[in-house]
């Protein structure tokens, strides 16, 4: 039996300190309060003083509460039984199902040896033309969705979760509104995808320390499944809440803030999570899609800024659509040469014309006269927004490419598109009179 400590020396925010011996850095403890039992993680050792952050928060903890160290770091049960289940950030079921205790694995393990990594090579189909066609998602990619609050990013994530061609989905929710949590749950249930989903959800009402655990716990489980030859898609929403939780803890810990109150290691903290995305050469893979809400639509805010340096591009959600400008999949070149002969050409061609459409819109707004070419562009832009950009459009890549040619043909003469003659001959829709 492990020793029980019944004198808490200090309680500052969510951090409590006891005097104890033989405690390891990162070890887990149980704190018994009158509100129930909570886990706590050791975050600092100073001689016999052991400081830990209490998952359930410091509120209501008394100096006389009991603390018992568990002798192991934060762990999560890993087995097939996880599938279809919903847990909170501490790994405790929130779906009234049984607690899982078999085959415990440690979270936040070491990083993958760079020399064992391979160049990403396979696309993940999502059925969303703005992704599949214009900014292809690639297996093992890490991509954030930059968005301002109020955009339908969680709906987008839920749709990708439903449609993405992957074996398993792990949803890590951080500071999720309870409604959004229910939306995820319902969407997945209705779509019948719940059985291939594991959810770790921290809602806005839950204690902030649990928020910090969500990415690690999600990714630790993902890693194990990937090593069992599954292609895992990890959806994290929202990483700005995670960063804010980091900030909160750092400030109560009296750490010197670096930029807008965020701790100096924000980059390393985010990178440690995002870099878990990997394609194991002889096993499965982890792909990460994460929502990063940008306070004030400001991409230079520390969270999106640090994220941009870490991830392999970003989807930029604006006005309910994935913006073609500002969105970028750095890995798309690895795969979009192998899909269909016209993929790259249609991608570039349509975007160039769409850029021209935006210029025309500006001209129009300033009251300039519209030429015949401008009229064509206006028609094209409207069609493009309706048939391609609208998030409700749900068609496979090939159909999206065909649709692209159709839109082009209904607006322009072949030579106006700037596409190669060879491709035009092959793909330009024949006129049906």
């Amino acid at each position, binding site marked *: 039996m492990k020793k029980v400590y019944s004198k808490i020396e200090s309680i500052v925010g969510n951090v409590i300190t006891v005097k104890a011996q033989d405690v390891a850095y990162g070890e887990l403890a149980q704190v018994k309060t009158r509100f129930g039992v909570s886990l706590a993680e050791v975050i600092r050792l100073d001689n016999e003083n052991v400081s830990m952050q209490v998952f359930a928060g410091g509120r209501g903890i008394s100096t006389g509460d009991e603390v018992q160290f568990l002798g192991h770091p934060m762990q999560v049960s890993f087995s097939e039984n996880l599938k279809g289940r919903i847990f909170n950030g501490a790994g405790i079921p929130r779906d009234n199902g049984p607690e899982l205790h078999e085959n415990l694995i440690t979270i936040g393990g*070491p990083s993958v040896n760079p*020399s064992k*990594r391979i*160049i990403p090579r396979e696309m993940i189909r999502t059925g969303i033309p703005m992704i599949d066609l214009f900014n292809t998602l690639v297996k093992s990619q890490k991509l954030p969705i930059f968005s301002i609050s109020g955009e339908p990013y969680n709906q987008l994530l839920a749709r990708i979760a439903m449609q993405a061609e992957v074996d398993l989905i792990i949803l890590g929710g951080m500071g999720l509104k309870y409604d959004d949590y229910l939306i995820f749950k319902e969407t997945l249930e209705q779509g019948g995808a719940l059985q291939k989903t594991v959810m770790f959800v921290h809602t806005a009402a839950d204690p902030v320390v649990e928020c910090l655990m969500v990415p690690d716990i999600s990714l630790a489980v993902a890693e194990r499944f990937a090593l069992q030859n599954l292609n895992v898609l990890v959806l994290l929403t929202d990483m700005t809440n995670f960063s804010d939780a980091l900030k909160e803890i750092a400030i109560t810990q009296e750490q010197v803030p670096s930029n807008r109150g965020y701790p100096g290691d924000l980059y390393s903290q985010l990178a440690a999570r995002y870099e878990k995305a990997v394609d194991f050469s002889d096993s499965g893979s982890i792909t990460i899609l994460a929502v990063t809400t940008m306070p004030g639509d400001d991409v230079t805010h*520390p969270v999106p800024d640090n994220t941009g*340096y870490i991830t392999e591009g970003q989807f930029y959600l604006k006005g309910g659509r994935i913006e073609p400008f500002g969105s970028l999949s750095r890995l798309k070149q690895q795969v979009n040469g192998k899909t269909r002969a016209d993929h790259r050409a249609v991608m570039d061609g349509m975007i160039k014309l769409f850029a021209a459409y935006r210029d025309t819109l500006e001209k129009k707004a300033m009251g300039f006269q519209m030429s015949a070419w401008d009229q064509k562009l206006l028609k094209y832009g409207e069609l493009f927004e309706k048939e391609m950009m609208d998030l409700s459009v749900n068609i496979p890549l090939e159909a999206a490419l065909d649709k692209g040619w159709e839109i082009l043909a209904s607006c322009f003469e072949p030579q106006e598109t700037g596409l190669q003659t060879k491709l035009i001959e092959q793909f330009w829709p024949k006129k049906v009179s």
Partner: protein
Amino acid sequence: MVTTKGIVTGVNGNMVTVKVDGVVSLNEVAYIHNGEKRLKAEVIRIRGDIVQTQVFEITKGIKVGMDVSFTGEMLAVELGPGLLSKIYDGLQNPLPEVAAKTGYFLEPGVYLDALPRTVTWDWTPIAKPGDTVTRGDYLGSVPEAGFVHKIMVPFTLYGTYTVKSVKEPGAYTVDTQIAVLVDAQGNEVPVTMFFEWPVKRAIDCYTERLKPTEPLITKSRIIDTFFPVAKGGTFCIPGPFGAGKTVLQQTTSRYADVDIVIVAACGERAGEVVETLVEFPELIDPRTGRSLMERTIIVCNTSSMPVAAREASVYTAVTMAEYYRQMGYDVLLLADSTSRWAQAMREMSGRLEEIPGEEAFPAYLESVIANFYERAGLVRLKDGKKGSVTIGGTVSPAGGNFEEPVTQATLKVVGCFLGLSRERSDARKYPAIHPLESWSKYRGVLPTEHVAWAHRFLERSAEVSQMMKVVGEEGTSLEDFVLYLKGELLDAVYLQQNSFDPVDAAVKPERQHFMFRLMVKILGGNQTFSDKEDARGWFNKLRQMILDMNSQEWKSDQFNETSAAVEAYIQERTKNMSAHGTKILEAMERA
């Protein structure tokens, strides 16, 4: 020798506090005994018998009371034959060998020999018994990947030595004793092909430092012509994310006209290193005819690897660079990104509870950055030959704003500033080096005054462009408009370069000369245009022709044809040349 021991008294992140029982030195390496594992750490602060160390591994599981042993040595790297084409982590652990041992994941506490002990090298002695030698003198040589790898008197042997014996020629492993030296007191010192050197000390076995004058050819037009880098110089590449820092580093590491390239991937994406790892063995170095990998060393401490080792990685890289410089080679060190290195310092400084400077960076940030870049240089070695280390570092400023401490501290000490701009990369103008913000203090492939003249066109073109935004094209005079078009043309066909085009990706100085002369003819020429449409049409066609030419093989029939057509096309419209333009053309003819 009695080694100092200690016990752990505190853990805070990657900082571990230790109570010691004897002598310790700053930056000494210690090992924390966690069960079977030995975790490497470095002493960063000493206060009485309390020592603070930064641990190069994950600190989870460390307990108060664990044993710590001190080595008495500073953090050092192995220097000897076998470094080339290796992939190391920040502490010089060979990553493929680690992978063979531990699989996919980097388990803490695994330290392997940096230099393989089983490979043999063909040893040819240079020194003879009776020779008097000092540190850095050549004892012999071995061939390594097409280079002559000099085996030197270890840099750690201060003082004068007499060679007692030298091993006869033959194939030996690095740990074979290849010579015995005798010091002034008569003590015998055996020497092998490799030795260790502390990474945070600059290697100083040379007679003098020289001023960098010779340009380091990167085969990028905007760099070699407008913002050149010198062999032995320093340059920095700040830019926001997505502006192409890493692509620029990768193309530079591929095409740079140097002997050896060391890439320090410091706190960046692992995926980018993988591209280098996979592509370099396939690419041929035109200088040696061997694979590019054979002239490259990769030091890779990516963003998710332990932070303290990230801090060490740039020093590990620069020490190996200095080592090859001692053999008379030109070495290029590319560090991507120095901001991550600075952030590693910031994290540690925070844990030490030091009083923070700007944006919480430590107050010593500037001097540390200056010290690092000062390890670049062109030197005259003891045998009169020259060797150089050139350092290029990328900087990732928060929010893309150059007014932040790391960028500013770097700008103070580098000789060349290649500022990348979001604006240019959004417009797909690559490389996105901003021509009006960047600068260089070095001499390039063309005389500085010629380049300055061409640069004026870029400035005036930008001015006209700004003006046009206010008054519109209608309110701009034809003369100004042509000036604007000239600047745009120079930008489109000279500054921008397609790194995915096999020909345009790397442009030799000879071709840059040719192109520049062409540019002078256009910029310095007075052309006749009836109106703005006429001018725009003429420049558009000219741009298309030159872009076509850019992707044609140098001096191929096709190229000769296009260039003749371009010359004729220009000639046709040019009334006369401006005086300055004529002067430059004449000067270029003479040269």
